[in-house]
């Protein structure tokens, strides 16, 4: 008693919280919680109730944990006073977690009592609570009560019960068998609230598994035509949107009523739903679509930003099939790109990107980029991201002119606030590996990037520079001037780069140097008609490597001519120009340049840099003296043992000249798992230890590298005629490639033969999938053939790996998960079809033959014995219109009969019959 006098009320707490100075809130809450803990144990119900109410307040507004008080809610719920009950149930519905609060089961009895209470308000309270705390046990125990309530004479109770049933079905699908018939019966009620509840319930159910609800289509149609309640209509439209794809003939029936609603132009919400319905499910109905697009246009022209936003969304849906709709509203869409609302801008951008095709990709990108340069950095990056995503979609499906795209990528990197460096980096390398024909342009783009000292200062483009450097090194044979590349790669300002990028630079410099020396030595051999078979095989190789450029030669002809490069058939375009530079002095200059620039780096404290620098230096040390010897030979004084230098150079050069291909996403999966490596073991305890700490990527590469590298090289040496195996890592990252290739030099070439000959080439399958030019040619699908014909030049081959990747995704998507709920619904709706159809046969004998044909056709229809197919099969048989009419009238009679029955008695058996008859009615309705 005294407690309740001195207890602080909810209002006191709220006032206190509002008055307490900032920062002291937690103390105040903690103090209040202490009080609450004491008060809630009180035997006085109203003290307890107030305490619980305060706690509920703190829980829902301030996020205070109240799971400890769950039992008190249960206790108070048993109070006979409505106000206490209300507080208790409110706290329960706000704080109980259906899956983890174990005292919920203690509430079962109380809920049952309240659900069957004579006080309608108690019932409604219990229903609201049930809807938020129900778990399978609770649902199972309370289904009978719920079933009774579905027929309650108090509309507001029945309505709530229907809404709660949705949750119950989800938790406890068996309830469907008991309740579903009653729900369907409620579809015919005159009360708007109940109808709305039923339609909402069915809408939610239909979204999950539409097929089961097809038999109810006639009922929905009736509502669609008769109802004037927007909320109900919206839900019915949603239901039809799900049903029509399953039963296209439904579309013909509903399209007119929907257009009717749209023309009436009542509430915007309904209008939008009609539009969405038409564009998603009825887009083949020309006039309806026109009407919908017209409405969309009105939306776009409206001042209301909401309508604009939704209009753009609707257009995006239409755009997939009917591009004209977007074209008609082009100016509005482009205008939306500069809207004040970032969400609308984004939506417009998405819409624009969805219209991209091979024909317009260049135009759209140009427009967007000019727009991007004008807009704020955030949106600019959004645009860039969208462009990169769209262009790279499905292996650059929309790109025909890779030269354009590659130079476009290069330009993008130069946009001052471009933060999409990673995307550009990945795509540059990816295109390099996948599209042979683009390499020439790629190299010149890369050269421009590498050579520009201004870019080195911008940390956002470092990734791009790494890609450019890698490309310059990897495809140096396509470069016009390797010397300037070398200078660019070794320029002093590279010290601004991050270590990882810098090591790419050094490695690329190594490759360029290698290439120059090699060309020089080879040239030498040519000049003096060098006797060994070496040069011959080499020039063959070179021919092979330059093969890629031949294709694009005719195009780049004029361009190359400007630079005074003479193209001799089959030779790399840069070959002759290079010739002029290849003198002893220039080579020595190159070597010295490398030496002076990399010398200090061999003492760098970054291992990657140090490693690579010493590799290059070591190589120089090895080659430099030999080079002089080689030069002596060229003067005619041939000494047998000094042949070594070119041989060694060739050996190393060959190792570099193996082509890198893209690596399949699934590559890793194909690597057989070594014994004793448990990848799938649960790391749960690890998670417990580390908590929220995010893991950085493990640096496992460097650990496995030496061994793998050895295997790689051994394989290469043993079977030089075969194509190279791919690096085993699924990572396509530039650096990873580098490390692996770099690793080759941990062992001197002589040692390689020693490596175990019969090691298992784990990467064999990939090699097969990727390489072999013939296979690549085959991969260009016939899909493009049509488009090719009206293009000046063929689309370059884009290397795609096994389509397993896509196939996998598809399989996952189509994986059918049998749904317990829908199974139960189907059973109820189509339960005793056999009896129903037999009764139908007897009722109209004239149709017997038709039914027979229907049934025979059904046999040839789908093999599955499920009943829904049964209905379908019948629906698809063609009948003459006369018979159809006749039959429909019969059906209607039948239906009316059964409804009369239903009104007389609400027995379950009758209900079943009724539902079944409806289900058999549907084919006639559809025709």
């Amino acid at each position: 008693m005294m407690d309740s006098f001195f207890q602080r009320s909810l209002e006191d707490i709220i006032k206190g919280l509002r008055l307490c100075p900032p920062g002291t809130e937690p103390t105040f809450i903690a103090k209040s919680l202490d009080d609450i803990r004491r008060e809630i144990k009180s035997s006085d119900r109203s003290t307890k109730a107030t305490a619980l109410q305060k706690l509920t307040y703190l829980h829902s507004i301030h996020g205070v944990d109240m799971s400890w008080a769950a039992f008190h809610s249960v206790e108070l719920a048993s109070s006979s006073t409505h106000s206490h009950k209300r507080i208790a149930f409110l706290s329960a519905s706000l704080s109980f977690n259906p899956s983890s609060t174990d005292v919920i089961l203690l509430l079962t009895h109380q809920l049952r009592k309240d659900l069957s209470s004579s006080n309608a308000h108690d019932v409604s309270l219990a229903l609201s609570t049930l809807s938020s705390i129900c778990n399978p046990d609770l649902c199972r125990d309370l289904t009978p009560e719920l079933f009774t309530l579905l027929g309650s004479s108090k509309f507001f109770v029945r309505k709530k019960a229907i809404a709660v049933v949705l949750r119950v079905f989800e938790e406890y699908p068996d309830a469907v068998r008991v309740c579903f018939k009653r729900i369907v019966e409620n579809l015919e009620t005159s009360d708007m609230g109940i109808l709305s509840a039923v339609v909402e319930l069915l809408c939610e159910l239909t979204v999950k598994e539409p097929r089961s609800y097809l038999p109810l289509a006639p009922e929905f149609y009736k509502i669609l035509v008769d109802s004037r309640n927007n909320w109900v209509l919206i839900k019915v439209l949603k239901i039809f949107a799900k049903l029509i794809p399953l039963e296209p003939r439904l579309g013909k029936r509903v399209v007119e009523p929907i257009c009717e609603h749209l023309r009436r132009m009542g509430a915007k919400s309904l209008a939008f739903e009609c539009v969405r319905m038409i564009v998603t499910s009825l887009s083949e109905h020309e006039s309806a679509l026109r009407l919908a697009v017209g409405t969309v246009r009105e939306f776009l022209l409206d001042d209301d930003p909401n309508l604009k936003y939704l209009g753009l969304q609707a257009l995006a849906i239409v755009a997939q099939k009917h591009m004209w709709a977007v074209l008609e509203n082009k100016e509005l869409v482009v205008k939306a790109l500069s809207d004040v609302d970032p969400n609308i801008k984004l939506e417009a951008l998405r819409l624009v990107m969805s219209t991209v095709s091979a024909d317009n990709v260049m135009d759209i990108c140009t427009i967007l980029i000019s727009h991007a340069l004008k807009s704020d950095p955030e949106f600019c990056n959004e645009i860039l991201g969208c462009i990169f995503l769209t262009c790279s979609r499905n292996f650059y499906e929309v790109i025909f002119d890779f030269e354009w795209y590659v130079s476009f990528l290069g330009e993008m990197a130069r946009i001052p606030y471009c933060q999409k460096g990673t995307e550009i980096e990945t795509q540059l390398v990816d295109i390099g590996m996948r599209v042979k024909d683009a390499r020439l342009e790629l190299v010149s783009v890369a050269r421009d990037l590498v050579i520009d000292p201004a870019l080195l200062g911008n940390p956002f483009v470092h990734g791009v520079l790494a890609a450019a450097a890698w490309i310059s090194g990897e495809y140096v044979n396509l470069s016009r001037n390797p010397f300037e590349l070398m200078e660019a790669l070794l320029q002093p300002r590279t010290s601004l780069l991050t270590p990882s990028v810098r090591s790419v630079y050094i490695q690329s410099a190594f490759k360029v140097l290698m290439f120059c020396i090699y060309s020089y030595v080879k040239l030498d051999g040519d000049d003096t008609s060098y006797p060994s078979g070496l040069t011959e095989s080499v020039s063959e190789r070179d021919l092979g490597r330059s093969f890629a450029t031949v294709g694009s030669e005719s195009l780049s002809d004029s361009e190359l001519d400007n630079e005074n490069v003479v193209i001799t058939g089959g030779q790399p375009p840069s070959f002759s120009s290079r010739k002029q530079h290849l003198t002893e002095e220039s080579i020595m200059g190159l070597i010295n340049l490398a030496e002076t620039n990399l010398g200090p780096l061999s003492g760098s404290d970054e291992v990657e840099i140090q490693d690579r620098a010493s590799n290059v230096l070591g190589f120089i040390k090895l080659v430099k003296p030999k080079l002089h010897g080689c030069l002596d030979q060229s003067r005619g004084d041939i000494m047998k043992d000094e042949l070594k230098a070119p041989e060694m150079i060739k050996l190393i050069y060959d190792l570099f000249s193996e082509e890198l291909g893209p690596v399949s996403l699934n590559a890793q999966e194909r690597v057989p798992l070594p014994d004793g490596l448990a990848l799938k073991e649960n790391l749960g305890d690890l998670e417990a230890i580390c908590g929220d700490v995010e893991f950085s990527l493990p640096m496992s590469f460097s650990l496995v590298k030496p061994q793998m590298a050895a295997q790689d090289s051994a394989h290469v040496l043993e079977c030089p005629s075969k194509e190279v195996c791919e690096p085993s890592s699924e990572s396509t990252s530039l650096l990873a490639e580098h490390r692996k290739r770099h690793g080759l030099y941990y062992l001197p070439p002589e040692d390689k033969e020693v490596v175990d000959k019969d090691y298992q080439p784990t990467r064999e399958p990939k090699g097969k999938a990727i390489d072999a030019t013939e296979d690549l040619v085959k991969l260009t699908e016939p899909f493009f053939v049509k488009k090719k014909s009206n293009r000046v030049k063929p689309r370059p081959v884009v290397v795609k790996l096994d389509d397993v990747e896509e196939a996998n995704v598809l399989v996952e998507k189509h994986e059918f998960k049998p749904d317990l709920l829908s199974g139960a619904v189907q059973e109820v709706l189509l339960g005793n079809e056999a009896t129903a159809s037999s009764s139908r046969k007897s009722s109209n004998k004239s149709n017997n033959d038709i039914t027979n044909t229907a049934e025979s056709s059904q046999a040839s229809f789908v093999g599955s014995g499920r009943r829904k197919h049964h209905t379908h099969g019948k629906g698809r048989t063609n009948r003459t219109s006369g018979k159809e009419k006749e039959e429909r009238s019969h059906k209607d009679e039948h239906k009316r009969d059964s409804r009369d029955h239903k009104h007389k008695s609400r027995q379950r058996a009758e209900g079943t019959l009724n539902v079944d008859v409806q289900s058999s009615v549907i084919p006639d309705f559809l025709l």
Partner: protein
Amino acid sequence: MIHFVVLISRQGKVRLTKWYSPYSQKERAKVIRELSGMILTRGPKLCNFVEWRGYKVVYKRYASLYFCMCIDQDDNELEILEIIHHYVEILDRYFGSVCELDLIFNFHKAYYILDEILIAGELQESSKKTVARLVAAQDSLVEAAKEQASSISNMIAQATK
């Protein structure tokens, strides 16, 4: 369906939260933080929808209070705006030109009214009159109980227990 309803003041203070889908306490706090970051920063005269974690959040500002509801991708945004307005109108009718303070001091009543409008994440009553009638009836039940509890005889009975 509606996954949750959140009322946030312009200063980012939570005034009401109702969850129709299961969220843990931790997630709830995070959701509210994320949403207030997204919504409160949006200027006036922008559209009332934001995309959030694959869902859509429909919000509308009434004076100093933001009413936010989170819905599925293919739900009708305009309909939700209507529901929000419906709720506000009923609150207005109940409190008599409602203001934020009414909701602060009568948070439980705001819940009871919301419970009459939405159930299991669905709209259950589209008639303002009906909702007002039901809430009033419940209130009178509570009043009757209070009167009974505070009647002298009851107090004596309690005290002598």
